[in-house]
């Protein structure tokens, strides 16, 4: 902290370089991911034009449609055109829905973002509390109970959690609706009520993993000499964990949060379907069923992009939280 201005300046430059490298590497990965998605979704034998027109179509009609869809061009050119479209906000045209993919996604994306944001707001504080409590009572009865519970919860299928939530809150108690219809007009409270069950299911799915990783991150710190030092000088256990340990464990904890939140993306696929929630994940499932490739590719890229952003955020926090890198 007491570094001279020059060394902190060079430290900042070093930091920026490090961050720039991470961002560049993330972008390269994203490019390669888009290549993989493009190649895989083109694996289907035959082509989209033939499939759309059916077996009875004349070769001329197929050829005309291929030309219209740009399928007669070489794959590399189609890839570049698709990629440029993605970057420019035009991921193509959905032949199944007969409207631009961008419009379909624009109607669904806000719903998914709301759900993810609210689930995060519930899950993160809960996971931190469980993880920290557990770590502070390491080896105790509470810790062992929490440990076994979260271990079991990590392995539960999402649809079991969602079905039990429906049974309990909608069928038995009749507190909440079992289908998450977002009210067009209505207060924030109506929205919360409609979304309570999906949020609950998603939170349960991610909390266990997050809490386990938080606990592991804190316990890894508890064995270090500085913790013993603090203990010896008589710091209270709560202060020890919150003031001394937590800042040092922030990088692995944020990493754990990012990884678990990326699990929200996958979990949403099941949860949105069960609750009939009009989000991006259920849209993607529909795209698979109707073989709507442009829509599927665009959804996949959004999810991959979200995942890579989370990883990048975790990396950035890890770099910024490390004073050795900050003041080099």
């Amino acid at each position, binding site marked *: 902290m007491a570094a001279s201005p020059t060394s902190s300046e060079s430290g900042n430059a070093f930091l920026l370089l490090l961050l720039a490298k991470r961002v560049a590497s993330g972008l390269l990965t994203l490019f390669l*991911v888009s290549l993989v998605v493009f190649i*895989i979704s083109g694996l289907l034998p035959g082509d989209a034009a033939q499939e759309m027109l059916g077996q009875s179509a004349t070769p001329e009609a197929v050829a005309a449609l291929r030309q219209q869809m740009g399928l007669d061009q070489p794959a590399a050119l189609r890839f570049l055109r698709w990629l440029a479209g993605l970057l420019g906000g035009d991921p193509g045209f959905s032949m199944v829905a007969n409207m631009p993919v961008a419009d379909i996604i624009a109607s669904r994306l806000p719903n998914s973002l709301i759900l993810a944001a609210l689930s995060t707001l519930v899950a993160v504080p809960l996971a931190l509390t469980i993880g920290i409590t557990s770590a502070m009572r390491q080896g105790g009865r509470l810790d062992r109970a929490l440990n076994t519970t979260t271990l079991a919860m990590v392995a*539960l299928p999402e649809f079991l959690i969602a079905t039990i939530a429906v049974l309990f809150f909608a069928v038995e108690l009749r507190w909440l609706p079992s289908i998450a219809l977002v009210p067009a007009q209505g207060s924030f409270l109506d929205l919360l009520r409609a979304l309570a069950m999906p949020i609950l299911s998603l939170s349960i799915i991610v909390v266990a993993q997050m809490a386990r990783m938080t606990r592991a991150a804190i316990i890894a710190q508890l064995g270090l000499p500085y913790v013993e030092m603090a203990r010896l000088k008589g710091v209270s256990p709560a202060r020890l964990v919150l003031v001394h340990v937590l800042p040092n464990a922030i990088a692995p904890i944020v990493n754990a949060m990012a990884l678990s939140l990326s699990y929200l993306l996958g979990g949403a696929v099941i949860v949105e379907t069960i609750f009939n929630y009009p989000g991006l994940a259920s849209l993607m499932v529909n795209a698979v069923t109707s073989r709507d490739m442009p829509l599927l590719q665009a959804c996949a890229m959004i999810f991959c992009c979200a995942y890579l952003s989370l990883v990048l955020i975790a990396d950035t926090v890890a770099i910024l939280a490390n004073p050795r890198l900050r003041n080099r």
Partner: protein
Amino acid sequence: MSVTVDEIKAGKAVSPGWVAQLPLSGKLGLGLVIFWIATAIAGPWLAPYDPGAFTHQDVFASFGAAHWLGSDYLGRDVLSRVLSGARYSVGLAAAAAIAASCTGTGLALIAALAPRWLDELLSRFIDTLISIPSKIFALVLVAAVGSSLLLLFLIAAFIYIPGAYRIARSQAVNLAQMDYVQVARTRGEKAAYIAIREILPNMLHPMLADFGLRFVFIVLMLSGLSFLGLGVQPPDADLGSLVRENISGLGEAAPAILVPALAIATLTVGVNLLIDALPRRHGSKEG
């Protein structure tokens, strides 16, 4: 250590001393794992009814004497359908997990001993695949190639190779620096000998724990796909398909929907409890 390895592989041949050392949760896990392996093997013969036959006059019947676990949405026997469905859930996932772990380990051994450029190329490729969330990847693959049993096996194996590779590579690269490997090199042993006789035996234990986790991920992914109607297709039905087809019984809390969902949960939780309880030398829990 070798006892543990063989036991997990066979899922049986339990030596009392090893089991006695397990904590309670581990014993519970072991019991569940053995139960499900036995069910997957013997299930279809134990089924009291033909899983496809309409044997109950009511749909979504509850627990009863003639039909222990009630009936499903068409009046079929739930117990028989679960016993037959377990084979798909356990068998398909086990096959895919074995394929993923073996391929991942093999690639990792190649990467650890190959020239630098090949290692970097391979690792870059794997890093790309690992950056696609597994469920999203599964949806893209199913849309692209379809979902017959063979394709589901290939899809599941392919999606989980990168994770296995990553764990195996970190192990193999460390082991390749060990003195005894250097000695074998100086002795003039071939790369294949070094990989199989010197490095592989020391990776087995962590890779088996990783295999267990991969199995759990694959069970969850395949049953999730089946739940969405994109996995195992009728007339075949795995446990996830059973949950899907009986979803309309949710309002009546029918056993037909709860039992298959709980069946999957006991299988995956059991494996998780068992792995967690195993003595760990240098295992990593990150998937």
